[in-house]
């Protein structure tokens, strides 16, 4: 029972990291119809940059902020150049971001090498403490990550539901043309969402680097989780990203713990069930 609770907590932590990555992915897809396959690579690059900053300054939080901001800048540039040039075709954008994966991975390999790296959390976050219920000894860092992702989720929820920018984004997901026709600067909203998505991915890279590690292939793993989340939750749905992240995070964790031979395959049971029963996703509105 204790192990099950610990696995559940691990699954929730993983869900937190997955949520940070997939919420940006789903919003970008929802409002821009851009399938950014390089989203996982941005996550990994953010993690690596965070690792280097932390290694040289010894400040975890500086690393976290630097990674998030540098990836936001990267996302901004990417949206203003490549994505803008390819405005004419969803498939062209997808293929170009596929090419970008190879570039980012290769550059990361050249700079940080092929050995897995782990980011250490500072001070008390790096230690473990006994949980009040059931007396499990659990790392503080994982609780911290879970807390941070809940705070980010709440902040994003506020942004989307209670601000003008959020209203524009939500309206854009529902009907892009109409929002543009109403005189809203859709162009600016797109850049903003894309930048926000990259910022969240870079932020998640540092957090994920503490518990999952940074390694060649972490990008495609994370991309896969994000894709599974958006399929299950519904493309473009923020609430779907929360629900999907919880589901995928827990399934991946239980799968790895209890069915090691089929950990990857177990992940796709919810994906395939959702596709067959409700192809637009659990909380998706229009046909994907």
């Amino acid at each position: 029972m204790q192990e099950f609770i610990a696995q559940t907590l691990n699954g929730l932590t993983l869900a937190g990291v997955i949520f940070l990555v997939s919420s940006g992915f789903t919003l970008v897809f929802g409002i821009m119809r851009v399938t950014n396959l390089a989203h996982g690579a941005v996550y990994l690059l953010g993690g690596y940059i965070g690792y280097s900053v932390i290694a040289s300054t010894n400040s975890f939080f500086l690393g976290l902020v630097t990674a998030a901001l540098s990836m936001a800048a990267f996302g901004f540039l990417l949206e203003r150049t490549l994505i803008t040039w390819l405005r004419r075709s969803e498939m062209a954008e997808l293929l170009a971001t596929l090419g970008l994966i190879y570039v980012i991975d290769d550059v990361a390999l050249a700079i940080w090498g092929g050995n897995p790296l782990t980011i250490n959390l500072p001070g008390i976050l790096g230690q473990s403490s006994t949980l009040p219920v059931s007396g499990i000894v659990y790392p503080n860092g994982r609780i911290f990550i879970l807390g941070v992702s809940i705070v980010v989720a709440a902040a994003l929820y506020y942004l989307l539901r209670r601000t003008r920018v959020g209203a524009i984004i939500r309206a854009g997901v529902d009907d892009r043309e109409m929002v543009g026709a109403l005189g809203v600067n859709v162009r600016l909203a797109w850049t903003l969402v894309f930048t926000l998505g990259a910022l969240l991915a870079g932020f998640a890279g540092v957090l994920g680097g503490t518990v999952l590690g940074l390694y060649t292939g972490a990008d495609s793993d994370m991309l896969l989780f994000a894709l599974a989340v958006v399929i299950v939750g519904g493309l473009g749905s923020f609430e779907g990203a929360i629900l999907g992240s919880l589901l995928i995070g827990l399934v991946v964790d239980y799968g790895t713990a209890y069915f090691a031979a089929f950990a990857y395959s177990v992940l796709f049971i919810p994906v395939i069930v959702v596709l067959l029963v409700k192809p637009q996703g659990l909380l998706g509105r229009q046909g994907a």
Partner: protein
Amino acid sequence: MTAADRRPAGAVSPAGPGPPASRLARLTLVTLERSRPLIAPAAGVAVAVILVLLLQGNGFVSTLIEDALVYAIAAMALDFMAGYAGMISLAQAGFLGVGAYGVAIAENHFFSPWVAVGIALGVVLVAGLALGIVAVRTKGVSFVIITLALGQVLYGLAFQWTGLSEGDNGITLASLPSVGPIDLNDPLTLKMTVLVVFAVTALVLLLLVHSPFGLSLRGVRSNEARLTALGYRTGLHRYLAWVIAVFFAGVAGVLYIFVNSLISPTTMAFSADGFLVVMVVLGGLGSIWGPALGALVIVLFQQELSTYVSRWQTVMGLTLIAVVVLSPGGFWGLVRAAGRRRDALIARLRARQDGGAAPPGGAGQAAGPPLALEPAQPGTDPRQTP
């Protein structure tokens, strides 16, 4: 065609009305017109060179071409699905792996090599039929995402189901099939077999492309709603295209393990799925031959030049981006465009030589048709409105 059109270039009277044709222009025209019948022989020579290099060349070049032909089979099949039905799959290397693992695992369980091949192709077909039910429910970008997920399931099984797949180490193949005089353990016989299977695959795919089925697939890509309205079962068309592409990926997988004697999960990783898409897009979506060329280029870089050019993946990624941005038709698209441009040039030069006989503008307009059989540039499908 009028008599004036057929008149040899030298017979043009310089005293005719209109701008006088310069010597250079006349020379260009003659060269261009005489070059047309040379295209087929040139292609023939290229094929012959590849044949000689494959069968007679030293180990380096010969192995390279052999590997490229194996990947070309999977790439051409992917192009059949992606270029004609608009279904870009990121699971193709996964099915290649299923074919290869199928042979290796069956042989390790004491089946004879030929039976192992049969089992492998059967497993690929069943996997394709089953996963196709899920994949074909989606279109466009969603299809890419679903196939990426399916490809990773296959990769995950190869990587994590160590009881069957021996995990990261992969499985080696002990012996290759042989029947009568055909013994695949002999390298030369194996090369011939790879070549024959490649040729048969290309032929089958080309026949399919030009069959009514292939034409309706293009219709599904460009306007599915219209085909549905006309009574076509578009879902079934897409499903069949998927099964055909998956099956040939499995065929490539069987040859892959024959050639390499080893299959490991890396062959099915996400980057390998991506490589096949890169081969198709670089070569040219919707051209069958283009992806074969793309396979040659990528295999050349991946297996041979990677020791000399350390950052070749960066080069490849940037090339893919450049192709998508600048020339969505890929290499084959450039060839087609060059052909059209040449025809236009011929027409313009001819018009100028014939002087007032034909207005210069009109002839240029009439140029393109012979090569304009293809629908609008593949790969640049207009953004769907929600």
